[in-house]
């Protein structure tokens, strides 16, 4: 069999996923259970995001896939190739050209617009999971808006370490209602979640979809005397010189010498070419 339906999934399945997405958009931050399918890549490789993208993409879309902020990481390539094969749509590396962006662990540095959809891959959708392992319990806690346990955890962090010891997948509260896991993005990206684009989160193995409509209020949890801080390495990019982007630390020699470079490769490349043009 060589011929697959557009975007691999059959239309019934896509409809089921679209319903979950619409429900998620209607109740921002609420985890909608959906009948996740086995995809031809393993769970943990972004099957939730892939299913959301499959249900979202149309033949006119231009698709971008990033992993760790980069288009060129192996899994981003694999997912992009998969969609090229099963949809034949156009793909791009450029954030501004894309209509649908699937991401793992980052939000692009370039601000997204109302014409774009950002699809996140989510490993553990439940922000309370590591405080309470039972799904039956956590669902109840969300229903009752019972988030005391989370605040206790943050408080204990401060009393033990003097700071909130969560640096990625930093929990947020959506429109004053649901506590939500932003997926394992660095907390540097949290403030960007109040954006013009639609954000959809897909967790394949855990069978959950949740979403943020454009301009939804997203507040990182904190305390008045210990306010949330979107931190990053205290450097500028060694390649493009940007001072306000999230940086990867790269070990470059045997002596442990290191450089700091933008994790968003498209943004970094754009800065470089802009610098080139202005110097010419």
């Amino acid at each position, binding site marked *: *069999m060589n011929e697959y339906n557009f975007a691999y999934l059959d239309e019934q399945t896509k409809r089921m996923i679209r319903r979950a997405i619409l429900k998620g958009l209607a109740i921002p931050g609420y985890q909608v259970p959906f009948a996740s399918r086995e*995809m031809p890549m393993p769970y*943990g*490789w972004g099957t939730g995001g892939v299913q959301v993208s499959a249900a979202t993409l149309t033949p006119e879309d231009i698709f971008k896939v990033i992993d760790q902020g980069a288009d060129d990481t192996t899994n981003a390539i694999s997912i992009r190739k998969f969609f090229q094969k099963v949809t034949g749509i156009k793909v791009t590396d450029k954030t501004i050209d894309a209509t649908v962006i699937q991401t793992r662990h980052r939000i692009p540095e370039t601000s997204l617009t109302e014409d774009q959809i950002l699809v996140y891959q989510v490993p553990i959708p439940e922000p309370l999971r590591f405080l309470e392992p039972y799904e039956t319990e956590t669902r109840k806690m969300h229903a009752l808006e019972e988030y005391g346990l989370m605040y206790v955890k943050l408080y204990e962090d401060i009393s033990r370490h003097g*700071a909130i010891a969560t640096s990625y997948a930093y929990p947020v509260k959506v429109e004053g209602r649901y506590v939500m896991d932003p997926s394992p993005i660095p907390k*540097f990206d949290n403030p960007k979640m109040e954006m013009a684009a639609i954000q959809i989160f897909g967790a394949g*193995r855990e069978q959950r979809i949740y979403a943020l409509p454009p301009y939804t209020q997203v507040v990182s949890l904190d305390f008045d005397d210990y306010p949330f801080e979107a931190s990053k*390495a205290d450097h500028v990019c060694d390649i493009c010189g940007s001072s306000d982007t999230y940086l990867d630390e790269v070990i470059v020699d045997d002596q442990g010498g290191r450089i700091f470079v933008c994790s968003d490769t498209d943004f970094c490349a754009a800065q470089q070419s802009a610098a080139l043009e202005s110097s010419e």
Partner: protein
Amino acid sequence: MYVAVKGGEKAIDNAHAWLSEKRRGDKAIAEIGVGQIREQLTLAVNRVMAEGSLYDPDLASLAIKQSHGDLIEAIFLIRAYRTTLARFGKTRPIETTNMACIRRISATFKDAPGGQILGPTFDYTHRLLDFTLAADSETSVVESQDMSDAQMLPRITDYLNQEGLIQQEIQTGDEPGDLTREPLQLPAQRDLRLQSLTRGDEGFILGMAYSTQRGYGRNHPFVGELRVGGVVVEMEIPELGFSIEIGEIEVTECETVNQFTGSKSDPPQFTRGYGLVFGHSERKSISMALVDRALRWAELGEDNVGVPAQDEEFVLYHSDNIQATGFLEHIKLPHYVDFQSELELIRKLRCEAEIPSRDEEES
């Protein structure tokens, strides 16, 4: 350019090429055929069909070949293929009472109508390597008895049921759920638990069952009956208005007889656990029956003693090997963004605690 990310595309292509070369192995040795796998590695094929939730020996054999014999990888191939198949209807429940048994044993009665049929079993073999199989020549195979006159065999548990000694299974008439079409939501009913167990990882279900035998939720199981054989699959065709036979599948069914002491409302009665698995898979179906029985504690009025095998969320959320292996192996994927944020955090915390870094200590 720094080392990390460029060239991923080429690396993937090269990795795939190398993988396929590894699959073929030494070209001086004849390539294995899918037919050979189907006919000679039948128990592996059975496992792939059972945990892949797709009864197709040819595809399962192909998956085993393609996966270099890694059965979980083969199961994964089958599951991913299964996703693309349109659902055009559902069959009638198979009637295992009418099974054409190749094997049927009871550990609770020395003899029963229909008799004990040992069938093709490893049970009483001595596990000595048979070096004659290592010789490439065709080994002599003793023809087994013709089993074409397989008769319908009564169920052992029915004899206990006649006396009211075993708890009656109530037919609810509810439409069974479908784990593969609806998201699993807990608490699950027994239909979904059984679906989950039958496609669950054999090793995991075995371990869970074994834990009940060793005292983590002991339920005193006896193999009331274990039967292996072919059953016909029938489907009602709406246009016809009656059901027709669309094929035959091999299954293994295990009914356990378990003790329990009765409660205030019920006199002492045996209870049941149930296992049903595609193909010839005795270990799996017995394990399934034990775990099924352990999970029924609430329905049977038992105490939850807090053991893993009684914990529906624990068992059902961790039995699927495709989910488990995916999430486990995904930690091989790059996590450098998250790790970077952890690096910064730990440096900051250490800085605040004023722990000198190693370089400073030395200098």
